[in-house]
């Protein structure tokens, strides 16, 4: 998966599918004519261009010989677990922001991210997260008066 061949094949297929979908979708809007273009006119051209370019990329991937490239491995990138974890934390905090409120969410975001790896000890993570939440309260709520969701806590 790390060779350019597979990268081009995979991304080419992704964009091809998206290009086809986008083109078909644009035909549901009024296309018009070349001198009277409607709302679907430009999207249709763009969809077709996406299809054309992704076909070229697919072609390049097809022709490339992975044996000639330096790295021939089929593994996921080394840090993928870490990255997946960070993305999950971000998604979790996005959806917990309104029900739990900003204070708990900020605390969780920082603590979970810092604990994610052997980055920091539990005590340091909790302390940093607590101080950050306090800082957010002072700056964003008291100073800038931002209407962040309060959630479970009342302040």
């Amino acid at each position, binding site marked *: 998966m790390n060779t350019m061949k597979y990268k081009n094949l995979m991304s080419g297929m992704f964009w091809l599918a998206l290009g086809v979908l986008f083109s078909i979708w644009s035909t549901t809007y009024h296309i018009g004519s070349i001198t009277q273009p409607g709302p679907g006119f430009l999207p249709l051209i*763009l969809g077709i261009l996406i299809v054309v370019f992704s076909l070229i990329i697919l072609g390049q991937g097809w022709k490339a010989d992975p044996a000639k490239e330096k790295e021939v491995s089929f593994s996921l990138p080394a*840090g993928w677990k*870490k990255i997946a974890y*960070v993305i999950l934390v*971000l*998604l979790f905090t996005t959806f917990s922001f309104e029900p739990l409120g900003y204070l708990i969410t*900020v605390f969780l*975001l920082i603590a979970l991210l810092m604990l994610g*790896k052997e980055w920091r000890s539990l005590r340091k993570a909790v302390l940093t997260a607590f101080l950050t939440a306090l800082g957010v309260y002072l700056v964003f709520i008291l100073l800038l008066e*931002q209407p962040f969701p309060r959630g479970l806590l009342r302040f």
Partner: protein
Amino acid sequence: MDVINNLTLGFGVALSSNNLLFCFIGCLVGTLIGVLPGIGPVATISLLLPATFGMDPTASIIMLAGVYYGAMYGGSTTSILVNIPGEAASIITCLDGYQMARQGRAGPALGMSAFGSFIGGTVSIIGLMFLAPLLAKAALKFGPPEYFALMLFGLTMVTYLCRGSVIKGLLMAVVGLAIATVGQDPISGNTRFTLGSIILMDGIGLVPVAMGVFGIGEILTNLEENIRQEVFSTKIGRILPSLQDWKICKWPIVRGSLLGFFLGILPGAGTVIPTFIAYTVEKRLSRTPEKFGTGMIEGVAAPETANNAATGGSLVTLLSLGIPANIVMAVLLGAFIIHGIQPGPLLISRHPALFWGTIASMYIGNGMLVILNLPLIGLWVKILKIPYSILFPLILLFCFLGVYSLNNNIHEILIMVIFGVFGYLMRKFGFEGAPFLMAMVLGPMMEVAFRQSLLYGDPFIFFKRPISGVLLGMSLVLLITPIFSNIARKRQVLEKLDD
């Protein structure tokens, strides 16, 4: 004497205590994110945008411009002391800057890059001051076909100059344009591709996307690479360059200023390409080119001057034509529009206080930056020592809260996270973010210009009008050359095989 009157007006605006404060904040934040690797001016300006909603437009633009040129000052510090570029525009500074630090000459390297930046920055403001009004006058004659051609040319340049495959760059530009069509059609008012969602009626916001692709995407990439920041020397020593240093750097700074400014005007060149060209030029002209990379002070002075000179250059097309020359300018264009100001040929005559105030603030800001960067260098070194494991959760938190405060809507945080993952994958698969974001900003304007041009009743109008014809011709040449150079390369290989 118009210039003197205008500058008096500008300094009157810029020297008001409020604007002076925001200029300082901009420069300070700019230096900070310049010093910190992993967060750049695109993400920062997007992040600060919501904070400017309640502010006067002039103060906002003064502050956001300060972030941009301030980042160019800060970037060199990290390059010289840590051998990691704080900013993409300081990559080349690592070569000789870090070597100078290893030889105990970190002080003069930092000093020369600050003075070079100041001179380059000032020269480019003077250029901007004279060139922008002239260009704006010429642009008054532009109609929709010319605007469309100009934007297409800019987009082509960005694609052509980005790293990696041109086809992938083109694909990214087209995808950016496609994303820009989500929401209300600017001409008929019909909604497109919204899936019935109210959030998407307004289109996919620039700020969440920019912060996703350039903020979150960058952080995810860095996490994988495990950045290790080791400050080489904490003792910096004497910062002022010696007379001998000045003698060596005199002409590199002059050349860097001119190169940076004129390349900066060119759409797509940004601040990175001028630094590479300035470095190469100095290496070519040097009597001892083999010594470049071993700690030559001109190898620090020339690129650091050029990246600051490019900031003024890139503002020329934004302020006179309303067309961004690079992605930072594209985000700044977004800031203008949010504040209800349409940048374009009429900007200077309709909002003279904003235009001249911004110019005057840039003179003041460059002065502030020398002070921020030289006597306070110790502070920046301390910040460099903050470990990435603390820094990256904080950067993510700022992105999170910043995007939410745009419209108090968690869907926009979700859009940011999705585009963050998208930006990360883009990097992994060899796609560039610059053409994508540039196309997304230009998209709505390009579509209006395109469709208005077609309404003239002649599909060939773009080629029949001289200015748009020339611009489209140039774009076409740019797109075709890589194909030919590819064929030429293959032919060479075949010939070699024949031998």
